[in-house]
């Protein structure tokens, strides 16, 4: 198992290794000329401003919504909770497509921040809401009895206890901002990812693109480091006997109506705008845009790639998940970091590395389905790992031993006990990977075999020719494909909190 996990780790290190290798290969002179230029400065400023505006705004919005839906008597809280997760089903570039249809002049940083917040706030809402549900209200009662007002209780007791959720969610949002391509191209906001694609389209896998990828990787590592620092290593745990009681819901009273406006407005902007635009383009396009001879193959190929990629990622993650649960240790921890870091790398970096590697040293794999699936498996390895790990941890080794004591061989006992118990987690992990692949754009554009089309690439080429009506069916299908998975996520996060 260790051997297999090491092998997967080495594969996961390929993109990062490639960036380092190509930097050395390019030579310092060229590398410095390519990195220290005005354009890179511009992109860096854009990227930092985007992160600095979007992440805090997203935290405030997600926290407000989570508090309203979990800790107040807001009418229809359950419905609002669903609506706060649902925007996840709309791919980020479809959000962008919707907004420029409604407001064609929208561009630059303000547009980037607005659409990013609307597209990504569920990533923060989910963990914060789950954490709020889990909190023991006793701590708040104690604080209140010691004389703190409601606001002080929130800031000094509730907020610190949601720190892990906020940090984890912000990390996810921060990394998405760095990796996203389609969203920012449509509103003419340049980031490293868009600039790398420009260079790729002007000079294929040249030094300028590779050096930009190097800077982008540094940005990602910076975000990871920042999150680790802010999160710190303090622990929050409830000690004491018995189980926590259900938290009280605060009565909103006269504030009910204004408070209702917040989730309502969010839902209108994050769901209403995309769905309204899609509906309008579909109506405008009529039956003519449903060209099944093009849509059919794209749908079939997307589904095949999603299923195959999900299975591959789960298989690749299985040895590590098993090791990290059964034999935790320093070496396993190091291997695990190798597995996780690749999820933080943007698709454009992974794809750029694989293009260059396959074209130079692995020509038979070049432009094959295998390479695309390999890229997907790397990019979505953490998604598969998280689900598997949690569910293997729920199958204690004692059960295997009991099975063996009852006469099963070791292999049989693993197969009949542990693997069965781990199946639901594996299924959730696979669903998450499949969802990621369905809406993946950059790696697919760069690596897809000749003649391959997916829903995302077709949508992209049609919007490039501003044929928004013809692009609408593809967007609709991506949304529909993502909906069940989004519901699954929401249901799972409620179950995880035990409510």
């Amino acid at each position, binding site marked *: 198992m260790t051997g297999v996990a090491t092998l997967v780790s080495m594969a996961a290190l390929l993109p990062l290794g490639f960036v380092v290798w190509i930097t050395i290969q390019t030579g310092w002179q060229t590398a410095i000329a390519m990195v220290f230029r005005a354009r890179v400065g511009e992109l860096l400023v854009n990227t930092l401003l985007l992160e600095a505006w979007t992440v805090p705004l997203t935290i405030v919005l997600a926290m407000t919504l989570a508090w309203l839906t979990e800790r107040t008597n807001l009418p229809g809280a359950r419905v609002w909770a669903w609506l706060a997760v649902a925007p996840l089903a709309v791919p980020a570039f479809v959000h962008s497509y919707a907004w420029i249809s409604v407001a064609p002049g929208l561009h630059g940083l303000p547009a980037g921040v607005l659409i990013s917040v609307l597209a990504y706030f569920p990533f923060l809402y989910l963990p914060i809401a789950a954490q709020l549900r889990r909190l023991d209200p006793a701590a708040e009662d104690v604080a209140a009895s010691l004389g703190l007002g409601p606001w002080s209780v929130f800031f000094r007791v509730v907020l610190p206890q949601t720190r892990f959720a906020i940090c984890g969610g912000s990390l996810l949002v921060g990394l998405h901002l760095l990796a996203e391509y389609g969203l920012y191209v449509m509103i003419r906001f340049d980031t490293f990812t868009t600039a790398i694609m420009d260079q790729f389209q002007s*000079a294929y896998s040249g030094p300028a693109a590779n050096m930009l990828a190097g800077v982008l990787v540094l940005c990602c590592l910076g975000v990871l480091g920042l999150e680790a620092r802010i999160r710190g290593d303090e622990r929050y745990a409830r000690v004491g006997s018995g189980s926590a009681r259900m938290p009280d819901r605060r009565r909103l009273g006269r504030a009910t109506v204004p408070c209702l406006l917040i989730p309502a407005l969010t839902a209108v902007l994050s769901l209403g705008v995309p769905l309204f635009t899609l509906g309008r383009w579909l109506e405008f396009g009529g039956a003519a845009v449903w060209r099944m001879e093009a849509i059919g193959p794209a749908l079939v190929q997307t589904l095949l*790639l999603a299923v195959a990629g999900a299975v591959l990622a789960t298989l690749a993650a299985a040895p590590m998940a098993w090791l990290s649960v059964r034999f935790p240790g320093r070496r396993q921890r190091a291997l695990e970091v190798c597995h996780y870091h690749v999820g933080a790398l943007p698709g454009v970096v992974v794809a750029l590395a694989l293009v260059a590697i396959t*074209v130079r040293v692995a020509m038979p794999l070049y432009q094959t389905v*295998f390479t695309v699936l390999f890229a997907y498996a790397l990019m979505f390895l953490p998604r598969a790992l998280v689900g598997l790990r949690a569910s293997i941890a729920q199958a204690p080794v004692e059960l295997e031993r009991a099975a063996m004591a009852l006469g099963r061989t070791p292999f049989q006992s693993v197969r009949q006990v542990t693997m069965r118990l781990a*199946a639901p987690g594996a299924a959730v992990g696979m669903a998450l990977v499949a969802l990621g692949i369905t809406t993946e754009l950059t790696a697919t554009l760069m690596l897809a075999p000749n003649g*391959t089309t997916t829903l995302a690439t077709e949508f992209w080429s049609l919007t490039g020719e501003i044929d928004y009506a013809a692009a609408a069916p593809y967007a609709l299908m991506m949304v529909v494909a993502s909906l069940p998975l989004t519901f699954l996520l929401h249901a799972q996060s409620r179950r995880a909190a035990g409510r």
Partner: protein
Amino acid sequence: MKKSLPSFASVLALGAFLVGSPLMAVSALAQGADADGIIIYNAQHASLTQAWADGFTRDTGIKVTLRKGSDMELGNQIVQEGAASPADVFVTENSPAMALVDGAGLFAPLAADTIAQVPPEYQPANGRWIGVAARSTVFAYDKNKLTPAQLPKSLLDLADPSWSGRWGASPSGADFQAIVSALLELKGEAVTSSWLKAMKAGVKPYRGNSVAMKAVNAGEIEGAVIYHYYWFGDQAKTGENSKNVALHYFRKGDPGAFVSVSGAGVLASSKHQAQAQAFVKWVTGKGGQEILRDGDSFEYAVGVGARSNPKLEPLAKLQAPKVEASKLNNKTVTDLMTSAGLL
């Protein structure tokens, strides 16, 4: 444990099958499962090349698979792939990518009867690739905001600070880069470099010519340097992205009057030489050129005696500058644009 849950074991067991069978299925779908067909690296508008491919397949029975990309992406890709390239034919929107692949010595000579189908001004002297269509540079402007007297007389005028913030282009696109390569060929590196620096300060960059034209139509900018057919294509459909837009041709041999030649060539490494040669012959012949006249691409036909769409300004009246297509150098252009901060 509920019975209905799939056991992890069977998931694992199915794994190989599930990974394996889509692999084959996608390959089959992607390759058209036909070893005799040809693969075209296509940077032309997908709809135009698809129409050519459909016509060619109908006449010859030879299947065609397209790989989509932009001129320089696919050109550089072919160079990096070298002799192992899966491509049989390369079709572009502009000449520089053709010159790039030709410079690497990767094209096979074209058959003499193919070369004879296109006048010499639309192909390089060495006969290793050939023009299949042409497009003209235009200044698409907002006719509500600009009178003909206020229009720039030359492409170079746009570097003037008075134009700052008023015009747009799609600098990351192959089309605009071809226009810059013509400027480089006509006026030299010093003029081009300073023009690009002025452009960086004054241009509003868009991604895609149609997006730039849409911005002119919406009043975001007063004009944009694009190719002519975007306007004709939109007028032929609904006109919703071009109703406020008119076209200005620079003429008088100005760099802005550059007519760009779209090319096609057969890769020397192709294992389907006969089929690939047949495709280029078909496209430059009657069938291929009639698609340009009758279809909705609105690009100029270049074949001997071939007619373009009658709605277009005649090619002969454009007074395009004389530029040797095979000399257009995109490497220098991307380097200059990278150092000007446009890429």
